[in-house]
């Protein structure tokens, strides 16, 4: 009988133990599931937020990059313009000071203009203060152009004053052709043709 009692006690105790163990297992699962659910929600939400933020970041940075490019381009254009303005001032100064480089160029500018035109009779429109200098060089210019064109060329100084800081406008005597070799025209051509080269000089070179 005692044996039976002890067996019954054992069975009951086992059952009690099993109930508590089962509850502990369930409890552990509830906690584990909660952690898993939290991790899953966190992961999903973080992915969603990061995707959203990444899209904002990309958009913002792209806009900022475009803005930077625009600012950089504007700045470079301003600086190039400033260089051209400074060059124009230098040209005016050279003309005013009757610089030998300018005087020698004036002769060459006249020859170049006449060489690019057809015919043999030309007039040079120049600034009044350059007329005396060019008048002295007329025969030499005529000779140079005549030799190059292989025809007898005549060149006179026009009574019409040049409306420019310097240089020359050569016109055929029949008025049909005109070659604008003023300093402004040449500067404009430099701007049009040589901008990359000038930008390279202005912005190039090693860092100090």
């Amino acid at each position: 009988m005692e044996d039976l009692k002890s067996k019954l006690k054992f069975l009951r105790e086992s059952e009690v133990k099993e109930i508590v163990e089962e509850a502990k297992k369930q409890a552990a699962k509830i906690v584990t599931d909660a952690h898993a659910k939290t991790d899953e929600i966190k992961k999903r939400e973080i992915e969603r937020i990061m995707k959203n933020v990444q899209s904002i970041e990309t958009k913002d940075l792209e806009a900022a990059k475009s803005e930077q490019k625009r600012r950089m381009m504007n700045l470079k254009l301003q600086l190039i313009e400033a260089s051209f303005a400074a060059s124009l001032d230098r040209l005016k100064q050279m003309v005013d000071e009757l610089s030998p480089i300018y005087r020698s160029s004036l002769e060459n500018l006249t020859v170049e203009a006449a060489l690019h035109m057809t015919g043999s009779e030309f007039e040079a429109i120049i600034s009044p203060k350059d007329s005396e200098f060019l008048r002295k060089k007329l025969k030499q210019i005529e000779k140079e152009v005549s030799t190059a064109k292989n025809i007898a060329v005549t060149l006179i100084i026009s009574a019409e004053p040049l409306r420019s800081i310097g240089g020359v406008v050569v016109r055929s005597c029949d008025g049909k052709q005109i070659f604008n070799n003023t300093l402004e025209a040449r500067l404009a051509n430099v701007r049009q043709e040589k901008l990359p080269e000038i930008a390279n000089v202005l912005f190039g070179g090693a860092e100090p």
Partner: protein
Amino acid sequence: MLTGRLASSSRRVIDVSIDDIRNLVAKEKENETQLKEAQEEASRIIEQAERQAKVILKDVEDPSYFPSLHEQEIRRVEERKKVWETECDKALEKVKNKAARNRQKTVDHIIKLVFGGQKTNGRSQIEAEVSERK
């Protein structure tokens, strides 16, 4: 004394008295109480686990949890943008400084181009304007 016979799990037949049966019933009642207590303990354990789970989930179920993360990330982007803009400003400043250093050299180069390309080089170098009057 009343006696009876009981078969044990080991299939032995044992003699029991009524008192034994009474004792067994009393014991069984005691055991039922233990069982009930065990079930209550189990319920407590599970309830506690559920409370713990609620606490664990509270963070992510809190409506301010993710918006704050979002704001934090947006602030990070703003910071990155500010850093980038500062770098850009520095780059602009560098360009300005370089241009200031090269200004004289550039003006000299432009002047050279304005006076260059005359005579033989002609239009291939400097395209001066030629217009024909009809």
